[in-house]
């Protein structure tokens, strides 16, 4: 078990190093990152001064090592426009995005998993056909469009929910649904196929032939085995939700990280954009690691498989 954890953690660290390297090179795709940081009105002397101040005139290897050293100290640099450390800006907005992601996850799991069970248990019946239509529609719905439609219906026409910004719980409802719908479709599909796989196995058939009722069969026999693919998807979906927040937060003027990112792009504040992307990647790697650990708890055979 310890060896397994150690190996997976090592892999995660290598991936993070790779992500950081990738971002470093993306930053230099056009040759000189200084131009990303200066306003469009800057003179040549301004550019020169900033390039020297930020060390972009040093050899590439030195810049790269410096970049790594900064990140190792959790230093994401300073916002060029606001003159505030990027980490401070992200930390002040993160709670809002987490709240939104949590709400979306509740929507996604709360609707998606029961929907998937419905699809698997009532296969080919009208109720499952209707459910699969809903899943497919949710999957094809652009988040920004569903968000606008909800504002149109529930805020403009009916006046039930506030159209934007934060406040009490009612502000969270529409953004959560807009963000969660796409993941809901994924959860439903995965739940369905995982359940169908497990239900067709010998142990499930045996249990059924001994007269175990469907509810008990699902809860006591199948749930644990079917949860493994669900955990993988949950890990992936949480990082997708964080990325999707960029658009949903723009639609609903939700003051989270996504809104900051979009504002930073418009203001040419590249350091913030870079900080958010790095954070998103770290979170993704971390969640994948976490899901690996969870697997090994749910299904001990996985640890053994790795040590062959």
């Amino acid at each position, binding site marked *: 078990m310890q060896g397994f954890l150690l190996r997976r953690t090592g892999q995660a660290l290598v991936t993070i190093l790779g992500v950081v390297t990738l971002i470093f090179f993306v930053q230099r795709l056009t040759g000189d990152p200084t131009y*990303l940081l200066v306003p469009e009105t800057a003179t040549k002397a301004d550019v020169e001064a900033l390039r020297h101040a930020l060390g972009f005139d040093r050899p590439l290897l030195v810049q790269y090592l410096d970049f790594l050293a900064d990140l190792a100290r959790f230093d994401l640099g300073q916002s060029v426009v606001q003159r505030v450390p990027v980490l401070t800006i992200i930390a002040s907005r993160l709670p809002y995005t987490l709240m939104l992601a949590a709400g979306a996850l509740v929507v996604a799991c709360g609707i998606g998993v029961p929907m998937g069970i419905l699809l698997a248990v009532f296969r080919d019946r009208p109720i499952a056909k209707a459910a699969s239509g809903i899943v497919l529609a949710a999957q*094809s719905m652009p988040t920004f469009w569903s968000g606008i439609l909800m504002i149109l219906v529930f805020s*403009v026409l009916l006046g039930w929910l506030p159209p934007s910004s934060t406040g009490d719980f009612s502000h969270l409802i529409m953004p959560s649904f807009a963000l969660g719908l796409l993941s809901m479709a994924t959860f439903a599909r995965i739940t369905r196929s995982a359940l169908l796989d497990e239900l067709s196995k010998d142990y499930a058939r045996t249990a059924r032939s001994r007269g175990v009722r469907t509810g008990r069969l699902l809860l006591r026999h199948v749930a644990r085995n079917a949860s493994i693919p669900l955990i993988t998807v949950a890990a992936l979906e949480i990082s997708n939700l964080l990325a999707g927040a960029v658009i949903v937060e723009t639609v609903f003027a939700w003051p989270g990280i996504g809104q900051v990112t979009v504002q930073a792009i418009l203001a040419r504040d590249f350091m913030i954009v870079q900080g958010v992307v790095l954070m998103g990647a770290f979170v993704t790697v971390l969640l994948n690691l976490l899901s690996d650990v969870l697997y090994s708890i749910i299904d001990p055979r996985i640890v053994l498989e790795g040590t062959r």
Partner: protein
Amino acid sequence: MSAVASPLPRPRRQLPLRRWWPVAIIALVVLAAILAPWLAPYDPNAQNLAGRLKPPGTVSRSFHYWLGSDELGRDLLSRIIHGARVSLIVAFASVILSGTVGTVLGMIAGYRRGLVETAVMRVVDIFLSIPAVLLAIITVAVLGPSLVNVIMVLALTRWPRYARVAYSQTLSVATMPYVRLAALMGAGSGRILFRHILPNIIGGVSVVATLEFGLMVLFEAGLSFLGLGVQPPTASWGAMLSTGRNYVATAWWAATLPGLCLFVLVLAVNLTGDAVRDRLDPRFR
């Protein structure tokens, strides 16, 4: 989770596709995009400030707004027809680019094994651990927004998906007797990869490609929505939604109709993708 454990196979369908209407919708959009200059009743960028945000059916000066007008009095129908071009060009080009790069790299990794395999698959893991939307955003922020850059960025962010599929399928195909025989008879790596392996993995790759196509339409619209896609005044569904949403309380059509087009197109592509998958890859259901 193995193929053996799946329930009884259903009888194979005779027709290649279960439903015809998704294909018809895609054909319609493609046709609209190709014939846009002739189909669109007006120039998509022609402004008419007297006819700003007019509801569908309004007549103002020389314009007859079948689907209403936007905030500059431009004809929404003409802009939607022209917007189909951007969506389709970006989706086609990025799927072909990322599909080619990903498939070739995945095949080489799966056939060569060893160091190449480790290198390629590690890079794939790294790319897949950055949320694609964020990677696209930062790359466009560096390169600057334009049609070509959006295509490049989507290709850059999506090739690992194909590489994974091509890699795992190549691994199993490469052990087949006919591939070994070809190698024994002196066929070079290039010949083996493209003549013997590629035809056998192309099914799996095209399943990914059709599902990715819908996603690319959404990605393009998302980037345009954030102002990182095709630049104004070029009509793009995502950009139209973005400006239209400012008038959602007074002019519902400006944002709703381009969004409806996006939704219908992506729905049709996803339905077709599912059908292609059922057809080519019986392991998924």
